[in-house]
């Protein structure tokens, strides 16, 4: 095994360890948040018998101040998704035309190897 191969192996292992730590932090935080939420509901058990999900939903719908931000968040998320979809379709539409025109002037034109709609090539995903 050459020195460069050994270096590549070390690079792969170290970056994978960091990636694992990052994933552990990400999913660990989500699990911790869910667990704290679960404990909060558990705190009511036996003391307030009406602490049910139905009552939670009732509270959420009755208090418009609580519900409004969530409705806005959902609306913004849907709008962002539709906008993004439109942008990706537009990129794909212009891709071939741009490539064809550039090739007229530079026949050895190099490419970034992204997909037609400008997303990461599946082959490049580590």
């Amino acid at each position, binding site marked *: 095994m050459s*020195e*460069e191969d050994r*270096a*590549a192996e*070390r*690079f792969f292992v*170290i*970056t994978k360890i*960091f990636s694992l730590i990052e994933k552990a932090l*990400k999913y660990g*935080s*989500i699990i911790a*948040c*869910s667990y*704290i*939420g679960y404990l*909060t*509901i558990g*705190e*009511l058990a036996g003391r*307030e018998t*009406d*602490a049910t999900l139905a*009552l*939670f939903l009732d*509270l*959420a719908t009755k208090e418009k101040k*609580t519900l409004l931000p969530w409705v806005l968040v959902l609306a913004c998320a849907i709008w*962002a998704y539709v906008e993004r979809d439109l942008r990706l379709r537009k990129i794909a539409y212009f891709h071939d035309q741009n490539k064809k025109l*550039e090739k007229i*002037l*530079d026949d*050895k034109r*190099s*490419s*970034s*190897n*992204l997909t037609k709609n*400008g997303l*990461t*090539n599946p082959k*490049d*995903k*580590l």
Partner: protein
Amino acid sequence: MTIETAFYTVEFWFSVALLIIFLYGPWQKFIESAVRQKLFKARDDLFVYAAEGNISFDSEHYLRVRGSLNKFIRFAHAMTWVDIVVGRNVFPKSESETGLNSLLIGDETLECSVRDNLNNTIALGISAMILLIVFRSPFLMLASVCLIPIMKFVSFLNGKDYQAKSKKFVGGFLYSELSHI
């Protein structure tokens, strides 16, 4: 604990979980696309510059700068500060290795205006990558938010030069690492 308190506690932690999902999901894609757009613009400007006859499409300098921009665009999804720091320390450095930066800045064979244009294109590409690395990491983003007021305060006490120097110091490290790609 009343049911109202429990409701708001659950809502708070649900929001925190959603924020984490957002920062590691759609936010990453957004930053990636925004930076790629900046790099595509730099590549297109370079193409137009060559098409106007300022530099040949076959020139080594043109090919190298375009190649670097293509690499930045291609691997933007995977580029983090960890990859750069680990990569620079793990891979052996050959004595003949010349960074993209030194190739252009020190090259006297190029016309002054062409050299400036190519250097600006590289600087633009590298600053876009620095933005990508900082904004895709919640920790670096948080550190920047905390550091900016401190830098402002220290610069207020020490004169305006300090802010420029500290910016140059922080950006300079990533700049020198990225210019070898």
